């Protein structure tokens, strides 16, 4: 099979770029720890509201400047429907759905979690700008999908004092 010389250069360049790209992505993922949302814990999807931590949804402090946000998604909203988070705090979102597939998405951040009933999704994030954030569902979940939202207020305590 004859391959034109220029095509060999072209494919060689493409293949090298591809390998370099995969190595770069691998390092950012497994050395620097930049992974998209995930999680290996499971839960009975029909008993979410009775299972910790979702029996007490909300923001819970877990360390100095570290919090866990336990949230339940449902058609068509979130419990709680508002969170206040201190600026610069490391927040671990721990979220599940009690009915169909939803998402927990904060536009213009890297928080974009697919919520599969029966599984618990997790994602860590640190808010670096104070102010109002909209949370919405970007996975179609039914007739009221376009209404499904909550709010996050990132508070700058230092500037208030």
């Amino acid at each position, binding site marked *: 099979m004859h391959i034109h010389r220029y*095509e060999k250069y072209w494919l060689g360049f493409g293949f090298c770029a591809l390998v370099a790209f995969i190595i770069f992505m691998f390092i950012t*993922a497994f050395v620097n720890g930049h*992974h998209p949302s995930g999680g290996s814990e499971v839960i009975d999807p029909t008993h979410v509201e009775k299972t910790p931590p979702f029996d007490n949804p909300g923001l819970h402090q877990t360390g100095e400047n570290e919090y866990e946000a336990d949230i339940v998604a449902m058609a068509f909203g979130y419990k709680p429907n508002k969170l206040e988070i201190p600026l610069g705090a490391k927040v671990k979102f721990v979220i599940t759905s009690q*009915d169909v*597939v939803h998402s927990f998405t904060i536009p213009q951040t890297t928080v974009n*979690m697919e919520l*599969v009933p029966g599984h618990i999704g997790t994602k860590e994030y640190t808010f670096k700008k104070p102010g109002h954030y909209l949370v919405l569902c970007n996975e179609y979940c*039914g007739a009221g999908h376009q209404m499904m939202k909550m709010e996050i207020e990132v508070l700058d305590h230092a500037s208030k004092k």
Partner: protein
Amino acid sequence: MLAKSKDNRLAFAFIATAFLFFFIGTICGLLQGLVRGGVIKQLPYWLDYYKVLTTHGVSLALLFTTNFIYGFFFAGVHKTMGNLSAKVRAAGWGGFWLMIIGTIMAVVTVLAGDASVLYTFYAPLKASPFFYIGLALWVIGSWVSGIAMMAHYFQWKKQHPQETTPLFGYMVVGTNLLWITACLGVAATVVLQMIPWSLGMTDKINILLSRTLFWYFGHPLVYFWLLPAYAYWYVSIPKLIGGKIFSDSLARLSFILFLIFSIPVGFHHQLMEPGIGEGWKFIQVSLTLMVVIPSLMTAFSMFASFESAGRRKGATGLFGWWKKLPYGDVRFLSPFLGMLFFIPAGIGGIINTSYQLDEIVHNTLWVVGHFHITVGAAVVMSFFGITYWLVPHLTGRTFSKSMNRLGILQVVLWAVGMFIMSTAMHVLGLYGAPRRTAYSTYGNDPVALDWFHGLVANQLYLPIGAFLLFLSSMLMVYLFIHLAFLAPKATADERVDFPISEAEHPEEKPPVILDKWKLWVGICVVLILLAYSVPVMDMLHHSPASPGYRTW
């Protein structure tokens, strides 16, 4: 030539069905654009947004594409390998009618409002059992027709043991093998999980497993759309521009690479979800990116055949051949514009699959913009180009200069509409605007209101683009009807032919190994088992099942 018309009648039945759903689907597209841009804030209750969205997706992504592909393929295998045997033709018709029955069942349940589950029908959204049974019949019908085409190829090969198989036939076999292997996933979730569950025989469903089986199918589905467009690019376009196929063997190799690397990659659609290990996601991301190789091969081939055709016509200098391309011929112009769309579309695809980058764009309007320039431009514009010669070829009518001019208007309208709409969608996606969502300001939230005020990131571009696309599609439907039923019958020297190019080096035989289909399917199966066995076993054992819901 009665036998000829028999095969062409089968091809025409598929093409006509395709355009019926093109008509329905693009009307839905206009309605969605109007709602999303806030021009119509609320559709009447009997025409709910998500019902329209489901009809749009099912009509265009599944029904238009598949029917068109089968019509094109049947016409092409008839052209390159002669009359179908009576058995093969009967199987082709059998598949056609099974697909029609399945389609009617699914479409009626969608229109009745019993299946507003979108064309991805993710559990635990639970539609009427008729929807799932219709889908299963449709898939089985597509297999029957696909196997008929492959049988025709292997019969030809048996009868011509010394000859190289026609490139078109080879591509038909590659595409159908891809389709059948891919459909095993969706067939498994529909037949084993969803049908018993929707009939009430089981009360719960393993959601993560179902999603995984769907995306095992969902990604190769996009290559199933793309490969027939590639077949047109490789086999017919060189002829239209007065050139030759740059390399017959490399064209075959690129189809093999698509077959191997398009299936064990579905996790890149599930990067944001729990229950799948990070290592497994990363392995499938890497396999996904391998598709870069056959894509670069195809790009090289296209431009190489453009250049050699231009030089054959006397072009000089480094880029003189650009001026020698037949831009006034809609059969070339349409797929050519599609190729231009495919350059940013391919780059966008790499972004989508790139693990961390997907966090920014996953399930946003970016993704909608992406598949509107891949399938909605590169693929569909190739299909438009095919339509302008295939329909008069099948019906024995003329394709006049004035039809060609209207055709150019049609594809330019489409390209402009798609450019406006998809550019806005991409940018809106970067700002977080969600896909598959009716008109909403989220209670006048400032973040969402910004999506109506941007210079580029503005949802008002969606109805503007959708309106141009709608005009273009109505013109296309008119031209289809004209070419099918109204244009004058062609005399012998006006006959429109199926363009089949010659190879640049016909003396060079493709390596025998490229025809070892069992080997390639075997490699494909091994990669699938490597990429999927462990995570799927994990899902079978650990993923909790859930009852069904009807939330619409």
